[in-house]
């Protein structure tokens, strides 16, 4: 088994009295692009929030490098693990360069506000996400796809080996979804460990190197897409009768939902 920089151990997760997952254990394998998927309300975003220390398990622990993430200095954690939440807020009128520069927060201090390193890393993050040309533009003038790349650049400026992305493609049209996923794949190839929550099963199968399928707060299947995306698993996870064929573009599994009797009424 590969080493796991980030893991949940018998974690009970929920909001207030509502329990979403009980005794959940998950290992995020190092160097993989892990995608967490499942139907609505299956607990996939909750798991991601717990892994990102936004949600504290009521029982059990989340381990970062083998130690309880809630017992570590939060700024030190922020230098190991970056997070792109579902709906981040861009302050009115902020420029692209300014927003990306916010990613340097965990590396800065009251008397260390802008080092030469900060300058260089922010430049590199903008170059890597192909937004250097937009540096002085206002974030609110950008298209949805560009804006998402700006947010990813901000997380990259954090310089973390681990990246967590909560539904990075939601609200984007198909072209921008692919653009963002291609960028994620590139970041993964460069050696980062990625964890993303995605809605689209076929996109998950195409881009992930490791899949975690969840249903009702539990992990139903886990492994390489080629191994676990089967008609049986899809029925188990989504209640969806389907056929699986090879994606003619990428060779990864492609889910084709069956034409059901109910659809013909």
């Amino acid at each position, binding site marked *: 088994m590969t080493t796991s920089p980030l893991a949940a151990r018998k974690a009970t997760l929920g909001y207030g009295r509502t329990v979403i997952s009980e005794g959940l254990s998950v290992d995020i394998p190092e160097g993989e692009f892990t995608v967490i998927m499942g139907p609505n309300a299956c607990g996939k975003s909750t798991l991601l929030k717990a892994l990102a220390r936004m949600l504290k398990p009521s029982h059990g622990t989340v381990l970062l490098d083998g130690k309880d993430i809630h017992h570590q200095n*939060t700024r030190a954690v922020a230098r190991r693990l970056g997070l792109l939440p579902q709906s981040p807020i861009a302050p009115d009128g902020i420029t692209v360069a300014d927003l990306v520069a916010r990613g340097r927060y965990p590396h800065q201090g009251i008397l260390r506000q802008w080092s030469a390193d900060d300058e260089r890393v922010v430049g590199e993050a903008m170059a890597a996400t192909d937004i250097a040309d937009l540096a002085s533009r206002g974030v609110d003038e950008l298209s949805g796809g560009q804006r998402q790349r700006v947010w990813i650049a901000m997380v990259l400026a954090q310089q973390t080996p681990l990246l967590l992305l*909560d539904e990075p493609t939601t609200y984007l049209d198909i072209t921008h979804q692919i653009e963002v996923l291609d960028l994620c794949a590139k970041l993964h190839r460069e050696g980062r460990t990625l964890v993303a929550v995605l809605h689209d099963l076929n996109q998950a199968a195409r881009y992930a190197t490791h899949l975690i399928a969840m249903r009702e707060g539990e992990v139903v299947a886990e492994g390489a897409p080629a191994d676990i995306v089967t008609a049986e698993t899809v029925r188990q996870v989504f209640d969806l009768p389907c056929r699986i064929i090879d994606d003619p573009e990428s060779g990864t599994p492609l889910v084709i939902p069956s034409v059901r009797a109910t659809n013909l009424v």
Partner: protein
Amino acid sequence: MTTASAPLRAAEGATVLRLGGYSIRLRHRVLAAVLGSLAALIALAMWSAATGSTSLGIERVWYALIGQGTKGDEFILWTLRLPRLATGLAVGACMGLAGALFQNLTRNPLGSPDLLGLTQGATTGALVAIIVTGSSLQVTTMLAAVGSLATGLLIWALTRGGDPSGYRLILVGIGVSAILAGVNGYLLTRTTIIDAFRAVYWLTGDLSGRDFGQAAAVGAVLAAGVLVIAFLSRGLDSLRLGEATATGLGVSVGATRVTALVTASILAAGAVAVAGPLAFVALAAPHIAARLTGSSRSFLCSALVGALIVTAADMIAVAGVGGRQLPTGVVTGVVGGAYLIWLLIAHRKKGVMS
């Protein structure tokens, strides 16, 4: 405007001062706004000291200041004007900071001690002092501070644990404010007409007759607040990106928010206790400062603008209407209210500042 060959402009519009491992980033627009409001404040303060019911002129103010003026001039300056001016500056700065903190915490342009009930809490304290104990200005000041602070802590206690979004804070604040308004109304009906008049006068907010002791008290609150904010401001700035993003960046969101809420409550308590609830200063100052600094926020600028508003309003109050001086709170209320309406009209099309 943008070309592919342009160099990476990660620190555009800012000057970075570096020394060894230390670095300070000065954003040009923020720097200009801070220096500009500081210059305006100094000019206004000098003008304020020189004018009034007796016009001294800058020259006589200067001689009185360095101890070479006439007895009369020195009395006017050191006993009548400077304590009032100093109190106004400190009160305005406290309110500007409190308003900026509350707007940041609630992520709402209306977040202010007035809306959240802190002012009502201070009023309850002051009314208890005036009506129940019939007591002096000192006790009134103390109880007003206690009332305001207690309200801040109550709001914090009621909002903790749950969904910590800005709306919750605002709604709880409005609820607490409504309850306290009822209590205040009850207290006013239970008193004599003379005490009721004194109470209403306090409720309007005024700076007349303040001495250096009071100025020093607010000044101490201000200094403590500035120190805390210096350490909080970077985290608060990250919180403007949303709580999830701030957590991801390594901000201790809970601790930052509690510290900011307590600090804002103390600042508001100090200011309201000494000057009464000068309406709208805490609301308007951060908006005007934001207009000056653009997308970056500056607590310092908000403090300076708050001091500017109170000083200017107090000069108008002293000049008065028809030869009679006004309570300072009347002026801040009228001017601030007009500003708020203008703000709402001007921003009808666009989402207001976050």
